[in-house]
């Protein structure tokens, strides 16, 4: 399996660390309440199909990236720097 690092280009999966659903980027406010925090830390859409998940090019440039990927075919559709996404949303 190969992923695209927006910084380094296409690399073997062995260079990447996987964290999970890209929901990790939307950290709730401290006072958001138990339900929202439970959602953030535990509950998952877990789609059989296209998903957005969070990886770090740990053995490479250390960039955290959001990868749009198909969980059934393992097709990689797009990958973006987490910082760019946050910049855009900010």
């Amino acid at each position, binding site marked *: *399996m*190969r992923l695209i690092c927006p910084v380094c280009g*296409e690399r073997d999966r062995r260079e990447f660390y996987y964290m999970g659903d890209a929901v990790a980027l939307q950290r709730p406010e401290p006072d958001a309440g138990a339900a929202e925090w439970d959602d953030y830390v535990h509950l998952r859409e877990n789609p059989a199909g296209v998903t957005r998940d969070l990886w770090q090019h740990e053995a490479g440039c*250390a960039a955290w990236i959001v990868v749009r990927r198909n969980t059934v075919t*393992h097709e990689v559709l797009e990958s973006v720097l987490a*910082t760019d996404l946050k910049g855009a949303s900010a």
Partner: protein
Amino acid sequence: MRVNGKGLIDRSRPVSFTFDGTRLQGFAGDTVASALLANDIRLMARSFKYHRPRGVLSAGSEEPNALITVKRGSDAEPNVRATVQEIYEGLEVRSQNAWPSLGFDALGVNDLAAPFFSAGFYYKTFMWPRAFWERVYEPLIRRAAGLGGVSGTASAAEYEKAFAFCDLLVIGAGPAGLMAALEAGRAGVDVILADEDVQAGGRLLSETHGVEGLSGSDWAARAIAELASMENVRIMARTTVTGAYDQSTFGALERVSQHHAPSKDAPRACFWRIVAKRSILAAGALERPVAFQNNDRPGIMTASAVRSYLNRWGVAPGRNVVVFGNNDDAHRTAHDLRAAGVHVAALVDSRPDARVTGDFPVFTGAQVCGSTGRQGLEAVTIRTQSGTEKIATECLAMSGGWNPSVHLTCHMNGRPEWRDDIASFVPKGGAIPGMVTAGACNGAFSTHGALAEGQAAAMETLEALGKKGAKSDLPDAEDTPYRMSPLWAVGGTGRAWLDFQNDVTVKDVKQAAKENFRSVEHMKRYTTQGMATDQGKNSNVNALAILADVTGRGIPETGTTTFRPPYSPVPIAAMGAGAQGKGFAPERLTTSHHSTVKRKAPMIEAGMWYRPSYFPVPGESHWRQSCDREVNMVRDTVGVCDVSTLGKIDVQGPDAAAFLDFVYTNTFSTLKPGRVRYGLMLREDGTVMDDGTTARLSDTHYVMTTTTAAAGAVMRHLEFVHQCLRPELDVSMISVTEQWAQFAVAGPKSRELLNGLLDMLIDNDSFPFMACGPVSVGGVDARLFRISFSGEHAYEIAVPARYGASLFEALNEKAAALGGGPYGMEALNVLRIEKGFITHAEIHGRVTAFDIGMERMISAKKDCIGQTMAARPGLLGAEREQLVGLKPIGAVKQLTAGAHLFDPENPATREHSEGYVTSVGFSPTMGVFLGMGFLKNGRARHGQTVKLVDHMRGIETLCEVHGPVLHDPEGGKTRG
């Protein structure tokens, strides 16, 4: 029997080898199988279940019967295909799964008991009496099962792994693959051409019809020569592409030195990871047998195998051969044999309308329905319209038609499609992204068809690569149509084999269906059909057809089982190459390593690092003596310990302070430059992640320390928090763990030691407790931190790593002069237990700040990672197990880590377990064992007595519960 004037072997180079101790001769270019047949040896192996005598079925890696063990120096390689292993001078080959001998195999009796060994019989019995399964039945079954054996000791052989990259990977060097590689190579793209065979050509090496007026092998040789002359083409012979993985990554096994005498330096095989932008599968096809009564005798093989032995290796598998098929292709075998002067006793074609000519007896609309000959074929019985007759023969060449080699296209869950006209499965387009299939593996069985599809595949691929391909004229070659009509099994009462190795017969499949194992997956798992070492390459389609027939479904509806990687088996040593011994993980050595080893300190692993456990001195025979001495040394004078393995992370930038406030539970923005503070880090779920001290070197520059174990995880976490949560913060992190060699100098005389070493003097005002700053030693810029993990007056001094070894010597020299010296992990552990400091033995991933009594360190004035979830009701309260100190008060004075804690009144059962011990050490300072552990509502139970029970070590004692800190609770010593 050798046939003069035939074959590609080098008759000028005789090669001798042994089979079960008997010395035999073959020629360079022979496989074990061809050489044995040349020596008129047909019996080569025994089957798995019934131990039936077996010879070769095929001439390739798909061979299910002729598996042998190759002796290689001290070790042996089991389950080698005799059809693949090339012979070399001195090769030692042994047969397998037969005792006492291949000729007389005691377990052959299984064959007589076959009626009781029908499909799934073992699910229905061996249940009484209960104990007998493990004691009697299973051991017997295990001993009977298995094929070859591993030697039981580590193999001396070397294996390696490698990566390769290309624009186009062509899998298979038959006519289709060669044509594709030629066209792509000429167009200038980077090509890798991989083929599992020794020599390029595929079926061309085994057929008499040529290409462009040249013999097949000559044409292939010419093509390979042209390819070899191209810089952009890489030819990989003896290389089996074993698996297709995501994003066009392929696994491949190269047999590097198995074809010559074992050499201890050369790798036996290399496992390749090949990354290709595009791929072309030209894997050819495999001929399928026909199921009829006793179709498994030595001497019965596929028609194409007979042609291979004859045309490629110059061997006639028998002096007298019968050919049996359901297609025109099989006729070639009869013609080739005849032309080579081998007697063809009969050609039997199951099709009434088959058109056959040739000067040998021909039976159309007839079938071979049985055979005789215990250890080798003696005769076959054929059934014609006019009845049955017996024909004496040593070899039956059978053909049920061809199965395209679709296997790789199934590795990513692709399902092949059924084609009625050729009664075979063919690859589904797009099953492997970027892969095009061509030639026989695609259902194009003629040489012309293969060449044409190879060329077309190349053109399609070149276009996809954005390259212009110039179509060259196709070499002219035969284009005989493939005429066949399905014949899966010949009717009859006896046992007709489908899966030869696993002894699965037509009856077994029918019985499975009767017992409602009608799904193809159920049938497979119930009968073990297709689960042998050939993974059903020779048998799946036949078995499927029979299942379809008995369940009244069509073959497409019945579906197939999934072909999974590897295409052909891969040694664990190949995919795991380099890991044997220490190669599994890098070894990290501190700058004091060599000096430490010289001091005879036993080393222990700490993550990937090695750290000294203690430093023995003359007269000490037990580690406890050394440990006690080292503890006392630190308490009384001064000790030196290499702490370089702790993670050190430089945190710099205008927002460094704000960033640390967010990742730590406590506040670092209020920390003054030149000072150090202990920090606690939580995971977002509120559990403790790590702890350590962080020093502020300047307004915008901190250096954080982590535990040795968590260094990597913390660095990753910091980058996550920065890049994914707080990218607006202007801060950057870089690890300086490797840059600095850092040593703890601990004990009442630590300052005295340093003042005898540093280029300047320090005192309690210039360097109070928790101070840090630049110093210089021997003229080298260094960093000094006044921190303590021992509870004593202590420092940590860091120098650029190149000076580490030298400084360690200097520190020890000075320490010795003061009555001190180096100390190791054992002493460090005791010192911190006396002081109640935690390590990952305590913060093991399930404890909260509350559990370790640090909930007050979670500042309410700010948000931080883990703060919210740490406030969940379940993570607080008396029911939680809380950190306590423990002292034995019973008769038994020993404490053990891992023991559980109970109310003295209660039995030691799960319901009553109230906690457990995490760390234990003998405190020479206090003359008792001290422990740390977690106890329900522990903070409220100081002074109470609990029962410690360690079933594992047979220890039970009473303990007094107290606060974790015993040594110098007021901390006067550290400030001193």
